[in-house]
């Protein structure tokens, strides 16, 4: 059966047969980098188009429908336009930091790709502290945003960056605790082991109510962490025109834009991995026939399907809810989400120790 696993295995065998192990590893690295960049470009295009189509559907519109059949080349055309545009740097801006910021945001998004399992045995780096790595790296993106806001030398940008800083630092906690519940249940920080532990049922189903709570908390926290509506205070266009990227134009703006969508993809991928079993097919206890049919669906399709389901959920939020105010946003985290997640973690620990989960 042609699967991503067999392709990688064949490639590696062939490379090892032809070259020395060091050279083979180098070539593999180059291939991985190229694939990652391609994935980024394709994801950016697909997600932007998806968002516009979802928005249009919700808003009783048609959405982009002129460039290509059904408007599928619309984002490609938009990207082309952004590349052609002048990347303006304001006179009073701190030019070095101003130009560096979009790349930092982008690089952080790229680094997060490493431990994600896209399909069965198809992973860039199965690091044994995968979950910790994700939590650590994802909090770096705030540096890029703060840098952009500060270096722009614009009051709107500064306010947006400060809001974003407060927001990401706060919601990191809830997201971390939500992730920890699964770590406690699995007993491992490694992504592949977390996925393997869900072979006979996803954690969302077999982890009782605390995992459901953790899942809800996770979705809320990552929506805030990626600066998506209803938590898009950092770029609240009716208040701060465009927040931290007010002064950016052309490709530098496009990098911020792309990084936002990549971040959404990554947090949804992690959510799918931790709570919805990653690439694991849907299995129900003793329904042998049903489970067998589910196994026929490729693991990559399962992973992408779950991820895009979560992405759709987050897009649905954006086009339905109004924006929160900055004090309400912080109240929500520090007064409600954080105590709930602390208590929830305690509950999960008890469940894990007593072995009450399935």
């Amino acid at each position, binding site marked *: 059966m042609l699967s991503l696993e067999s392709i990688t295995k064949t490639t590696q065998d062939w490379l090892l047969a032809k070259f020395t192990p060091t050279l083979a590893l180098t070539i593999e690295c180059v291939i991985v980098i190229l694939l990652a960049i391609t994935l980024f470009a394709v994801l950016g295009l697909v997600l932007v188009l998806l968002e516009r189509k979802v*928005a249009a559907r*919700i*808003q*009783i*519109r048609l959405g982009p429908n002129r460039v290509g059949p059904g408007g599928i080349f619309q984002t490609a055309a938009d990207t082309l336009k952004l590349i052609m545009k002048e990347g303006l740097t304001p006179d009073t801006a701190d030019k070095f930091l101003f130009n560096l910021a979009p790349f930092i945001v982008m690089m952080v998004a790229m680094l997060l790709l490493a431990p994600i399992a896209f399909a069965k045995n198809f992973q860039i780096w199965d690091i044994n502290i995968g979950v910790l790595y994700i939590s650590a790296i994802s909090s770096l993106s705030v540096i890029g945003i703060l840098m952009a806001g500060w270096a722009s030398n614009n*009051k*709107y940008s500064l*306010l947006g960056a400060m*809001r974003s800083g407060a927001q990401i630092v706060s919601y990191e906690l809830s997201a971390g605790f939500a992730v920890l519940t699964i770590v406690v249940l699995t007993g491992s920080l490694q992504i592949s082991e977390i996925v393997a532990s869900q072979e006979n049922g996803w954690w969302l189903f077999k982890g009782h109510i605390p995992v459901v709570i953790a899942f809800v908390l996770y979705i809320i926290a990552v929506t805030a962490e990626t600066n998506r*509506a*209803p938590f*898009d*205070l950092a770029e*609240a*266009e*009716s*208040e*701060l*025109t465009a927040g931290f990227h007010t002064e950016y134009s052309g490709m530098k703006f496009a990098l911020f834009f792309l990084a936002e969508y990549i971040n959404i993809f990554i947090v949804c991928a992690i959510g799918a991995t931790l709570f919805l079993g990653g690439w694991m097919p849907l299995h129900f206890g003793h329904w042998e026939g049903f489970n067998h049919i589910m196994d026929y669906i490729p693991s990559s399709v399962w992973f992408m399907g779950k991820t895009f389901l979560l992405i759709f959920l987050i897009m649905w939020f954006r*086009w*339905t*809810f*109004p*924006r*929160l*105010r*900055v*004090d*309400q946003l912080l109240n929500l985290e520090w007064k409600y989400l954080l105590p709930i997640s602390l208590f929830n973690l305690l509950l999960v620990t008890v469940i894990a120790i007593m072995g009450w989960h399935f």
Partner: protein
Amino acid sequence: MYNQTEIIKDTTELGPEGELVVNMGPQHPATHGVLHLVVTLNGETIKKIEPHLGYIHRSIEKMCESLTYRQFIYVTSRMDYLSSHINNTACALLVEKGMQIEVPERAKVVRTILNELTRIASHELWIGAMAMDLGAFTPFFYAFREREMITEIMEDTCGARLTMNYIVPSGLMYDIHPEFQTKVKAFIKQFKEKVTEYEDLVTGNIIFQSRTKGVGVLTPEDAISYGCSGPVARASGVSCDMRKIAPYDAYDKVEFDEIIETAGDSFARYMVRVKEMNQSIRIIEQLIDNIPEGDFVGKTKNVLKLNKGEFYQRVETARGELGVYVVSEGGTTPYRIKFRSPGFSNLSVLDHIANGSKIGDLMATMGTLDLVIPDIDR
């Protein structure tokens, strides 16, 4: 206007104790036009709001002094462009009052229906724009679906979609479109079915409620003292509906309620406008089947000359009380004309009620004050 250097000077100077002075506008997504607010901030908290007007000042009052009583009506469409019909009605009523012309019943009823349709259209646009200020994009498109039906009715009847110029002294410019009644009935049917869609999306939403409840509270005393009118004052519990106090056209023949809320916050202002739309539908329903036959315009001389004296006409636009004050010397043009625009007074209260709140609250407050900048600047 404020020249370039002045704007930069404003933005780069730091106030005492690290206060931040931010220019909101003239080009800002939330000011809906060219309103320029100089906002002094301390962190996220607003210390002072200073409106700078005049970016769209067209000197309509001075212009009207050289226009005849037939011409000056059309300039007023450009003041509050969202309720241009009602502005035109105010001017026509004033001329009719000054010349003591009788208006045919048919014209009166049609005017009332069109005024109420204009009010609904204005409130529809406001709901969309205000939700957008608060970060919800979707209600805008739902509201515009219904507003589109109204603009189509207007297009059939008046030939224009925004600045109608359909009202003339002593009646209407021409008779209504043959399909006017069927189209208005179709609109009423659609509106009643669909209004729940975006009401559910906005009114019951917990984020929307927490963003608007208790935000920008205006007490009844302040509302009166600041000269607020329309939904802004009614949300504070002040009865000020000109359609009830000084009925004009066919308003004395229809039954409707003056919507009054007492909370005085942004949510109350929102609720007043939403309920007002239903009252407007009620008025239209009472009149649409009872448009009297007869002339649509009374007989007047070609050249209109007002009697010597002073005349004042108050009407209720979608934003509040519009007053037209004309000093006539008996000639063909007004000697002095003054438009008391509702937005001007409603804007003056902004600093008072938004002071001390967050930037996000300013958007909610400003959104529910429903400011139309050409109306303020004139």
